[in-house]
């Protein structure tokens, strides 16, 4: 199949047929990379009617299954199921007014709009006939209009209908276009919406009467397609003519003027046409060269310049101008791979294949060289054209290379028939010599013979893969296994991996004018040899692959590196900077399938795997054919992508977001937080890269690659901010990105008031503890001090007693022992004094006896006290000549008593005896002791005259002093925890009971034996 476009310039490319129904992929056609989107990509259905792009960057498509929002990866569908505000799920027209509203036209004639996240109905169909919306947009003044299929144009701002230009009852072909203003055509007549009227377009020639289509222009003109000519009407005349219709008479469905001035025309039967300004021939894309179907339902250009079209019922198509193209002869290389390519001076291409011989392409013509033309072997692994115009080819048999002479390839005499297949053929500049690298080594071939320059270090099979010559004539040779050889002045030096080379398998070499040598290896990435130093570069620095097939310099400051993962374009200075170590990685563009390349693996390891033609294009050989790129047509995407945070989901439930902040605090017991975001760039959405960061958790930006989700789980309480930025397909970053702030509520036991309460409680507990301990300690101190005080009181009392009793008496003795002379003279007086001394001494002794008894702690027992009291009573009563009767138990328990108790009890007892002796007038006193488990009664009974208890003391002469004495006794007994009871019957005597309870004493630890009172043998 030959091209029928003979009249076109030579470099029109034959189009590669594309089988319809192929899976959605990007393909190259006519200088464009085209991508088809279908339901497997997420579209709800393949019938796409319209498109629009809102201010935020989202692309919206209308389908008969609802409204679709596209973010580059996902299609989100709004239909009547999930969006009841939509009156009709069949969306046929879309329009973004640039002020934040998306206008939606429906099949049945409704108009609705989407504004600030909400859908609302605007207008219902006015009648039942043909109200389908075929056009939606704003005019020059911003007023919104909707055109219906019946030709009427309705205002959406007010109640106004501009009736159709043709009679209402006739069906007709309607069209609408909006450039700056609104143009309509109905049944061949064009009109412009001006103010409140439809102003028909008056064209000069009657042959222009039938307008096939109109495309509004960005200036006030419009392209009016009539009379078989593509012309622009502006200011009342034809301002531009781009030639005749390119299409056979067919219905034009739509026409759109693109931003660069190109006119895009969509048809029903013939696909899409692009009519360029200037000389560039029109481009026709249809089912024949790749579109799924010919019917172009709509055309829309987005902000990045991608052209979107609806292709029949077969999906959505996006198109971008591409610098890549595929060249193939009519026989499509007879099914072989392209192995080698060389450029001739006149712009011709020589292409060697893997089994189909050699092809030549010149001026659009193909010629083929095969066995018949002298190539005994059809596997052409090397081809070159010398500056002198000689064509040499190397094939996979011994005895090459072959030279083209008079249309046939012959083996020159200088060539040895034993030479192994040549993989590298490079002319030596300034000479007629050819460098031949074959499977044994490198030799230099002149008119007479070949001279070996270097033998393959690895012997046969260690092929010469690449040869390069620099300005100074130094020849570099790369081997398949033997590393790198440098041939200069007849001397050969080798370089291996140990010297710094990326690998010993060299695939390609590029020698620069400044002496730098670039070495591409089969598994070790790219190595630079500069000023004797090797620098290795690999994927960590940004290289697309470790397998480097070929390197080309495009003359515009970039290297083009073909690999097994696509073609990489990198600025030379960036690569050098990285090789110098000045930057850790180099930026680049990697072109792969998403750019339309049919394959990402290129031929490598052969000198002729790629070449550059004089027009600047680069040609790469691959198993999918010959792929070219025009470096001059590379336009990096200048738009950083808008970044949107699409959803924030916690454990499967969407968190409502208001004004970039989560509406409410999130509970602390969550499992998983998920952020979905998008970078709205559609040129190559899979190349949009993301970085995100959670302020509060991540210290640096996290590289998400092209993934559009981020996960976090079980964040601790606090406030956070999630940020995400994105880059477009050419690495331009939107560093502002999108952000979302949210707060994780603390567990109640983390909240400040709980912690505070706990801390307070702890503090209180500590304080309380300290207080209790201190108090107890203080109490013990106090007790100790009280005891001490008691002891000191006792000592004071004793000291007082000693002082009073003993001191006074002894001083009396002292004085009595010094009688006056007068007293000594009379023996009677002396004797009297001595007698007084004697009496005083006896008195003192008795006092001391009592004090000693009171002080000695060995007598702090009850039995000792009873003993003492018995003895005292006997002596006292005997002196007073009263009978003494003791009724005391033989065994008295040794209950411990305090000194104070002893003291008080004894004094009370003494007082009782005193009273009995002095006042009772008795002759017998009976003392008895009654013991009980925890108390005792000491009873002193006399047989005296008794007294009347009731009578006051003063009246009874027998009780002169005893009134006070009795009160004192009672006080004494009370102070030791006891009682004093007195009973008296006049005439029968008095009985005084001293009762003491031991529970009040400090003797609770003493076991109390049971006592039988008055036990006798």
């Amino acid at each position, binding site marked *: 199949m030959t091209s029928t476009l003979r009249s076109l310039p030579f470099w029109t490319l034959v189009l590669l047929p594309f089988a319809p129904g192929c899976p959605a992929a990007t393909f190259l056609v006519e200088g464009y990379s085209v991508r088809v989107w279908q339901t497997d990509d997420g579209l709800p259905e393949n019938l796409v009617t319209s498109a629009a792009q809102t201010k935020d960057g989202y692309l919206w498509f209308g389908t008969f299954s609802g409204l679709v929002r596209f973010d580059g990866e996902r299609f989100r569908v709004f239909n009547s199921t999930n969006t009841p505000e939509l009156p009709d799920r069949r969306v046929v027209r879309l329009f973004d007014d640039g002020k934040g509203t998306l206008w939606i036209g429906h099949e049945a004639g409704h108009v609705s709009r989407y504004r600030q996240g909400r859908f609302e109905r605007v207008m219902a169909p006015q009648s039942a006939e043909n109200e389908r919306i075929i056009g939606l947009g704003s005019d020059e003044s911003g007023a919104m209009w909707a055109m219906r299929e019946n030709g009427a144009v309705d205002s959406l701002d007010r109640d106004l209908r501009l009736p159709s230009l043709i009679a209402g009852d006739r069906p007709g072909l309607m069209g609408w276009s909006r450039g700056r203003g609104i143009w309509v055509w109905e049944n061949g007549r064009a009109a412009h919406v001006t103010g409140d009227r439809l102003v028909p377009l008056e064209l000069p020639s009657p042959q222009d009467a039938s307008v096939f289509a109109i495309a509004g222009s960005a200036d006030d003109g419009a392209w009016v397609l009539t009379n078989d000519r593509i012309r622009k009407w502006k200011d009342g005349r034809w301002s531009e003519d781009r030639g005749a219709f390119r299409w056979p008479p067919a219905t034009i469905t739509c026409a759109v003027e693109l931003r660069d001035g190109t006119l895009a025309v969509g048809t029903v039967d013939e696909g899409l046409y692009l009519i360029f300004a200037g000389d560039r021939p029109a481009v026709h894309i249809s089912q024949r060269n790749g579109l799924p179907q010919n019917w172009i339902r709509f055309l829309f250009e987005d902000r990045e310049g991608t052209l979107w079209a609806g292709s029949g019922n077969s999906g959505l198509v996006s198109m971008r101008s591409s610098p890549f193209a595929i060249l193939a002869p009519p026989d499509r290389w007879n099914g072989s791979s392209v192995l080698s390519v060389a450029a001739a001076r006149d712009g011709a291409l020589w292409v060697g294949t893997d089994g189909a011989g050699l092809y030549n392409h010149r001026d659009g013509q193909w010629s083929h060289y095969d066995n018949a033309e002298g190539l005994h072997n059809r596997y052409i692994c090397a081809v070159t054209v010398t500056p002198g115009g000689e064509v040499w080819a190397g094939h996979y048999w011994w005895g090459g290379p072959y030279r083209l002479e008079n249309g046939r390839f012959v083996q020159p005499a200088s060539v040895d028939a034993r030479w192994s297949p040549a993989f590298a053929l490079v002319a030596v500049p300034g000479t007629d010599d050819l460098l031949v690298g074959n499977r044994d080594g490198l030799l230099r071939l002149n008119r007479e013979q070949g001279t070996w320059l270097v033998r393959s270090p690895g012997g046969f099979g260690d092929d010469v893969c690449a040869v390069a010559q620099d300005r100074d004539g130094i020849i570099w040779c790369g081997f398949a296994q033997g590393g790198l050889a440098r041939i200069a002045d007849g001397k050969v030096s080798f370089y291996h991996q140990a010297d710094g080379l990326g690998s010993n398998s060299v695939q390609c070499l590029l020698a620069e004018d400044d002496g730098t040598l670039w070495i591409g290896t089969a598994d070790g990435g790219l190595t630079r040899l500069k000023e004797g130093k090797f620098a290795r570069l690999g994927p960590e620095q940004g290289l697309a692959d470790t397998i480097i097939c070929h390197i080309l310099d495009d003359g515009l400051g970039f290297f083009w590196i073909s690999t097994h993962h696509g073609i990489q374009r990198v600025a030379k200075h960036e690569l050098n900077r990285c090789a110098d170590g000045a930057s850790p990685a180099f930026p680049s563009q990697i072109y792969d399938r998403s750019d339309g390349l049919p394959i990402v693996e290129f031929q490598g390891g052969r000198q002729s795997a790629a070449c550059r033609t004089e027009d600047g294009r680069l040609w790469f050989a691959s198993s999918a054919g010959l792929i070219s790129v025009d470096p001059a047509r590379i336009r990096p995407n200048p738009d950083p992508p808008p970044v949107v945070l699409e959803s924030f989901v916690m454990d499967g439930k969407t968190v409502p977001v208001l004004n970039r902040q989560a509406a409410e605090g999130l509970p602390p017991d969550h499992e998983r937080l998920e952020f979905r975001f998008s970078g709205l760039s559609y040129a190559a959405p899979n190349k949009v890269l993301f970085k995100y960061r959670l302020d509060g958790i991540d210290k640096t930006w996290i590289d998400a690659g092209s993934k559009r989700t981020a996960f976090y789980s079980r964040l601790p309480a606090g406030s956070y901010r999630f940020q995400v930025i994105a880059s477009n397909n050419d690495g331009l970053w939107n560093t502002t990105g999108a952000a979302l702030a949210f707060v994780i509520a603390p567990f109640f036991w983390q909240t400040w008031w709980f912690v505070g309460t706990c801390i307070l409680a702890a503090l209180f507990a500590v304080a309380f503890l300290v207080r209790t301990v201190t108090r107890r300690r203080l109490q013990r101190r106090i007790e100790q001090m009280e005891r001490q005080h008691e002891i000191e009181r006792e000592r004071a009392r004793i000291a007082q007693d000693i002082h009073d009793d003993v001191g006074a008496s002894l001083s009396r003795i002292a004085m009595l022992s010094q009688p006056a002379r007068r007293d000594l003279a009379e023996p009677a007086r002396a004797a009297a004094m001595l007698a007084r001394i004697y009496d005083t001494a006896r008195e003192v*002794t008795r006092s001391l006896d009592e004090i000693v008894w009171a002080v000695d702690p060995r007598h702090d027992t009850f039995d000792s006290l009873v003993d003492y009291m018995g003895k005292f009573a*006997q002596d006292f009563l005997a002196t007073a000549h009263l009978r003494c*009767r*003791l009724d005391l138990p*033989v065994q008295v328990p040794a209950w411990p008593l305090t000194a104070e108790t002893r003291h008080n009890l004894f004094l009370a007892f003494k007082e009782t005896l005193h009273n009995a002796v002095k006042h009772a007038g008795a002759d017998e006193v009976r*003392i008895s002791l009654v013991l009980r488990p925890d108390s005792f009664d000491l009873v002193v009974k006399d047989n005296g005259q008794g007294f009347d208890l009731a009578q006051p003391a003063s009246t009874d002469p027998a009780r002169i002093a005893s009134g006070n004495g009795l009160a004192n006794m009672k006080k004494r007994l009370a102070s030791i925890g006891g009682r004093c009871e007195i009973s008296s019957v006049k005439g029968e005597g008095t009985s005084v009971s001293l009762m003491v309870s031991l529970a009040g004493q400090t003797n609770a630890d003493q076991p109390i034996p049971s006592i039988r009172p008055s036990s006798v043998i």
Partner: protein
Amino acid sequence: MKTESSNPGQTQAATISVVVVEDDSSIRSILTNWLEEAEGFTCAGVFPDVESALPQIPKTRPDVAIVDINLPGLSGIECVRQLKPQVPATQFVMLTVYEDSNHIFDALSAGATGYLVKTTSRETLIAALREVHGGGSPMSGNIARKVVQNLQQPKIRPADELSKRENEVLVLLAQGYLYKEIAEALGIRLDTVNTYIRRIYEKLHVHSRSQAVARFTNLG
């Protein structure tokens, strides 16, 4: 306690030999003077401590020995304990500053027959010595109680048990009866009371000795 004397006038025909064991030199000389001056008494020896008295008293064999309880070295009680078996006929009378019934009882258990307070008047002291030599056995009520308490424990030999009469006397003493009142209550002569009490003392001495021995032989 004061010694209860019942027969103040009774004297022996021969002189009563008395030894004194006392560490205070003034008291020693005064006692010696009193004894020399008193009719019917001779001072048979004065010792400043027990150690010097121990070898001499068995040789001297006095009628009465006045021993101070509080002596340097061995105590007076120990002196009595060691000497009484050697000179059972000698009556030991303790001399004490204070009437500490525990010490007095110990002394009486050791072999003493009575005790005197150092502040006793001269006449009372001489009379008491005469009485002790004549068979009197002074015992006060609380001493009697202590005797009762002590003698409640079972005896080793039935012969050491108190007789019924002796028991009655002891009980009445403990109850505060005077010797005279006891004689009246039991219908016996005063001398008999003395005799009973003397016998009680002897049994007490034996008892306390045998108790000490029993402690050694019984080993608990």
